[in-house]
């Protein structure tokens, strides 16, 4: 789990059982990563999209990260934007 206990306060799940907290945080992370996987493809140029699908066959996760980070302008910003969006929806 990559989100620490301080985060539970922010998203208002501090009163739940530890098991439930972990379950919710895992689901949130999963949603963030799903959306990032989808939007990353949409952000790639046509040429890079082709290269990306070629790479997927044999790549390790670190290769995928390196490719996306290199070929998407501000990949980190995209990740941040999605994370904020998901958390903000959850807090509403």
């Amino acid at each position, binding site marked *: 789990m*990559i*989100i*620490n206990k*301080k*985060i539970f*306060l*922010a*998203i208002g*799940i501090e*009163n*739940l059982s530890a098991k*439930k907290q972990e379950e*919710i945080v895992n*689901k*949130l*992370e*999963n*949603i*963030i*990563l*799903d*959306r*990032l*996987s*989808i*939007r*990353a*493809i*949409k952000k790639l140029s046509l040429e890079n999209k082709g290269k990306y*699908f070629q790479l*997927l*066959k044999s*790549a*390790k*996760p*670190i*290769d*995928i*990260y*390196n490719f*996306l*980070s*290199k070929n998407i*302008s501000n*990949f*980190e910003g995209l*990740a*941040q934007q999605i*994370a*904020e969006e*998901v*958390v*903000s*929806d*959850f*807090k*509403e």
Partner: protein
Amino acid sequence: MSLESGFGSVFNSKKTIKEEPYKAEEDKVVGELLDLNKEEALLEGKIEIAEKKTETEQESLIKELSQKEVSLFQETKEKIKKGCQIGIVSMMIITSLLAAGCGAEKPQKVNHWSQINIEEARKAVPEDVTEGWVQHGLQSIGSWKENEGSFLVRTNKNEYYRINEENLEEFKERMSNYINQYLYYSIEIAGRDRELTGKLLDTRIKTWFDEYVEEAVDQERETIAYGLFEKSFSSEWQKLKDHVYFGVEQSDENQEKKDEVIQGTDLSDLDPTLK
């Protein structure tokens, strides 16, 4: 009043007195549990909505892809997610949540507590490893100083750049801040998996120099190296190499290259990283 009913009423009244506080406590607990269940149901509902939104996005993407691409995407989805999760995404989730107002820290205190976290990160990652990263970053410059006081730089991809001394100092400072920031953002991962953190940082430091310098020069993007480097050419590099190693005098732009070899060249101008 019979004895039985008399005792009965006494027992009953005692029972009521004993049970009242217990009942109130029980009602309170039941109430809290109901509230908690409602809260959990609400949160589950929110997650379900978010998951449906994601599914809709995925359906829209699938329409844009070929059949082959769709099946590749589906087959490797977990691997892609792991790739996305590595390093940067984890840090961004934490950062965005912090920015969204979690914890006691307010934005104006960022400098203070980020410094503390950097120190924690440094403790988590062995000192010699972080020193190695800094050194690697500096060695990536792989330059030597020209007479005019500027440096020629060759990246790992055989691209050439020029930087003056003042800009080089500025660049080193930006790089140092970058490493510190990266360490800070990696604190969560560092706390859990020191080996993974080391690998991630190592990869990052080894590749970022090329990416940042080239992008800064070619695309004028806002990067660490932005505005500090000028594009140079392999011929300049070769000329300088000839001068340093073989003493061939450097010709200026309008002069023909001289082949005269000067004996006993002073190598003190060589960048220490090349010795």
